[in-house]
């Protein structure tokens, strides 16, 4: 036993074994990404910046129901509901602010949204020199949403929140009489 | 529907009708029937006056009025075409009768013609299934009808109405 262990320690076999892994990686293909010039492809379920969505006819989906505000664990969302200025029977968000300095990107708000007005995108690199710059208003969120529409749809699909929209039925989802009128078939 | 002219109702007339039933609250349905007999429908003013006389709140009166489908809140045509769409008549083609009337008079079920002569009212069984398909107009039953017979009936009523107007 002692001879065997002596030989082992003299010849540094243990270290060689360890270094073997290191050396094999030296010859493998590099995976370092030159980030600003080169970007990774993200999964559809990636939880990036949250956006607001619209219906096909351009109308904003958000009904100002405050459920995202209620569920938000970081208290990053603030919704002020009011009567829609054009349709007195409809609720809408008069003010909607999402504070990305607080947001923890958990995606709960997207789950809570009864009308799929919220979704997450693959945007992750928004930055600002001020804190206020990261507090997004509804208009900003809508603009971002318009830009990343396919990503937001992909997110909803991969997260199993698209079913009701595809089936064209309002069963299982919430039914809002005014909105069913704007959707095809209702 | 075009603007319909509502009947003019006076409080005194309503008081008289209520008096017949000694102003009993329980007779409200009969009183409303009498009112309908007089005006052809139950005008809103009449409803309010009956409520005032019998001391029944307006909201309750309106509840009674809307509960029974026999009461009408809008003026009706001179000839109410009650077309039976009950089982027996349906089997014998009551649907064709209704369609014909619609086509002839350009009205939907429940509507009046613009000259206020006709009202189409599909009803459930009138109790004379042996005469199916049948219709009832101004209390007279017309049995074993067909679409053509229906049209000639309508013509007949139109003539009648014209005749009545002539002396005036």
């Amino acid at each position, binding site marked *: 036993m002692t001879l065997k262990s002596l030989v082992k320690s003299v010849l540094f076999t243990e270290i060689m074994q360890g270094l073997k892994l290191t050396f094999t990686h030296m010859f493998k293909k590099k995976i370092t990404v030159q980030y600003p010039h080169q970007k990774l492809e993200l999964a559809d379920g990636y939880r990036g910046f949250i956006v607001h969505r619209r219906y096909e006819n351009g109308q904003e989906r958000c009904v100002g129901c405050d459920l995202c505000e*209620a569920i938000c664990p970081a208290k990053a969302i603030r919704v002020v*509901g009011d009567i829609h200025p054009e349709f007195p029977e409809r609720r809408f968000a008069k003010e909607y602010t999402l504070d990305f300095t607080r947001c923890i990107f958990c995606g709960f708000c997207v789950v809570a949204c009864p*009308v799929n007005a919220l979704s997450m995108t693959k945007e992750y690199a928004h930055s600002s020199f001020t804190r206020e710059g990261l507090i997004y208003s509804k208009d900003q969120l809508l603009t971002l949403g318009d830009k990343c529409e396919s990503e937001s749809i992909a997110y909803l699909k991969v997260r199993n929140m698209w079913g009701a929209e595809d089936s064209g039925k309002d069963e299982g*989802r919430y039914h809002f*009489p005014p909105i069913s009128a704007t959707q095809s078939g209702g | 529907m075009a603007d319909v002219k509502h009947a003019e109702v006076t409080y005194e007339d309503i008081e008289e009708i209520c008096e017949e039933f000694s102003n009993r609250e329980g007779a409200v349905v009969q009183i409303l029937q009498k009112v309908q007999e007089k005006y052809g429908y139950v005008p809103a003013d009449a409803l309010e006056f009956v409520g005032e006389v019998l001391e029944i*709140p*307006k909201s309750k009166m309106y*509840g009674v009025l*809307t509960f029974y489908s026999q009461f009408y809140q809008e003026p009706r045509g001179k000839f109410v075409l009650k077309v039976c769409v009950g089982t027996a008549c349906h089997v014998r083609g009551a649907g064709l009768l209704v369609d014909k009337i619609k086509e002839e008079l350009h009205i939907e079920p429940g509507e009046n013609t613009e000259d206020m002569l006709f009202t189409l009212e599909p009803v459930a069984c009138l109790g004379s299934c042996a005469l199916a398909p049948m219709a009832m107009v101004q209390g007279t039953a017309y049995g074993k009808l067909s679409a053509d017979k229906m049209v000639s009936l309508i013509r007949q009523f139109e003539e009648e109405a014209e005749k009545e107007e002539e002396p005036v």
Partner: protein
Amino acid sequence: MAKVTVNGIEVEVDPSYTILKAAEKAGISIPTFCYHPRMDPAGSCRICAVELEDSKRVVMSCVTPVADGMRVLTESPKIHDARKTNLELLLLHHPLDCPVCDCGGECPLQNMSFAYGATESRFESHRNDEAEDLKSDVLVFNANRCILCGKCVRICDEIQDVHAIGFINRGFDTIIGPPLGKKLDCEFCGDCLEVCPTGAITDHFVRYKFRPWQLEQHQTTCTYCASGCQMQVETENESIVRVTSKEGLGPNEGSICVVGRFGFNHVQTPQRFDTPYMRVEHRLVPSSWDEVLPELASRLNAIRRKGTDRVAGLLSSRVSLEDAYAFQTFFRRVLRSNMIDTGARYGFMNAAIPLVEATGTLRPLVDHEDLLKAKVILLVGADPVAESNITGLFLKRAARKNRAKLYVVDSEAITLSTRASDHIRIHPGGESLFVGVLSEEISSRGNLSAEWLTRKEELFKNWNVDPGVFQRLVNDLKSAETGIVVTGRKMFRNENASRSMINMMRLIGSLGWIEKEGCGILPIPETANDLGVLMMGATHEWLPGLLDARNESSRKQWENAWGTSLSYGPGGGLEQILQGIEEGRINALITIGENPIGHFPPGSRVREILGKLELIVALDMFQNELVDMAHFVLPASSSFERAGHFVSIEGFVQKSVSTMAHWGESLPDWEILEKISYAMGNPMGFDSSEKLMAEIVRFLPDLSPSTRNGEHFVGGTGDIHLVKPLDSCGFANASDVKGVGGLSLLKASGSTPHKANRESVSSRFRSWTEMSRPIMNATSGIPGEGEFIFSMSKSLFHSGKMTLQDPNLKKIQPEGKLRINRQTARKRKIKKGEKITLTSAHGRCSFVVEPSPMVSEFELVFPEHFADAQVLALFPPEMAFSPMTGTPTTHRIRVSLSTETIS
């Protein structure tokens, strides 16, 4: 008694109880939708199903009476299934729009669906898609969400007796709404909104602006009228979102009126003063407390040094006990002045002075519960529904459910007239004459002179009153087991009001109602704290505790209590204040929420008189005529922002709490006065409203907070759980009271500490009746040919002039309309909404007309809230005051009517 076992718990209950009530007694809650503790059960929602253990039957607990030995299971697999199926059926038609429904989050249907897991219906769904009824300015009816429990219809019928809404159509098409598809036209109490278990009824004012879980609830006392309603003010970020009530809570038992429920928005409108203002070179400029106080203090000190009674004070009677106490302390102790008066002077003082003289107290002899027990109720010169809505509700209940004989004596038909066994229609202003005749009739015990009898006969002939009805009233009053006289604003604002009140006291004295429990008189105060400010001695007549301010011994008493010497002058009320200012004896005026200019006709020189003052300090919330003249305008907090106590019509001392942040730099009135006194170098030493109340209660332990207690339900719409009765003191700061000590002074007044002590009242009354003389001195006010009597009434939808600033109430009643008899209008071809001109001997003014079947043909009635200078111009410019009570006496004026409009 019946023994019932509910879920194994045995309870003994009255056999008249239903299973639901027995379960409640056992401490078990059963879910309900259509059950309401104050109404007859309907049994329509089928959710309160329970299982009878012996027969295995499922019955509805809200309608099934208990039987001896009954064994009930409220939770079992069978019951669970029954309820779940029921919910599935309810959800057949109910839209799943909870996220945008205002009820979502506090919805019993939502909670129940969640609890019973009825997420998926086995039935094919038929979602209703009716458009919402948005016609009304106040309520929104959404037929889709309605589960037809009928609570709204029933509360409107049974509790409010308004019958504004009903079921429409039949079967699946049934909806709830106002009749004939018209706009909702009712008292807008909002009780239907409160009881609706779903979002079928919501209101326009807060529609879509809130979510229930964001709101913070504050239980407080309404400070509009004297009913003393307990309500819940719900706030978000320290601003008021809505006002709700809690079933069974407080004297109002969960009902609140339109003003209480919707009149909260004026306190958060930008028109409110948010900073102190100082007059610099004829202009009011915004300033700060630090700048204003030293300047004001030095000017006040200079005036104070001139002698006693140099500064006058006018206090609104809508302030709390604390404010009133600080007000009189400030004047009597700091400014050495007794020239103080309150808003009660314009009316309620006419009742207060005779009441205090006759009974020694302002606490009422009877409360609302006595109204329910009374056999005969005489209502003279009051419209309780408008003046003190909850008193009106109790009167409706007394007449409707308890079959009390209600006699209404009024010139016009009031809401309660339809419930009255007899309505004696007198001529406008004839209240005092009627009371005189009635009291003489009863106190003379049949020994009436022949001359009197002929005069009486003549009078009734003039009035067109059936003498038989009068005789019936007299007989009923005489033979009544228990009887109550209710009187109010119209009586107080009568030319001979104080005399009539004496007659009224004589009347109830000779009926023996002073001694008898459950009998007496219930005067309806005009504002929330008329009783309180008078008890606090905020008028020149009385020191706190209603002690005579001019009496040396009572002054000594308070000198001892305060440990200072009081050196105020003889003082005076409104009349003496105006006189004193005119003669230059008074140099400064401090007003708290009062504007004397608004009460007198423009020709009356009040403005001119006030112009002679060296210094006017106005503590107010909004701009008015006096503020325009003031040298200092100090922003006062509203009653929603500060804590304070109010004395209700029933004598309850109830707390109103601070529910929102102080508006701008505004402060409570007592704090402003304290700051001024501090700046003057003579601080009163009140550092918090709690300490202030503790001092009041230390000296006057009778004013310890109290409210009507008892078992009651909480939640109102659905989840029912039992709440333990409040402890006898009711409110938290009872412990503060004990901390100060001095409780030994507390009179043991049994279970009803809010009412007057009948023994002390009757002993005082006995000595008073001996001094009184029968007074019959009035002329009947029958207008001449083509003439009308113009008078002013209190509207149900407003309270004082303050609520005119309220956006919500202004939407409900935006302008004052002159009410005219319908027949007269038809005869004169005046249509609704037209303009007419009234001309009196002193001026003319045009009005928009509203024909009404309620008004008498001799009268034209206008809501007082809208009476601006143009309307007041109809009244004589001379200011006349009653020699007995110092109240202004002109309330009615003869006018002629023309359809031409003034250019």
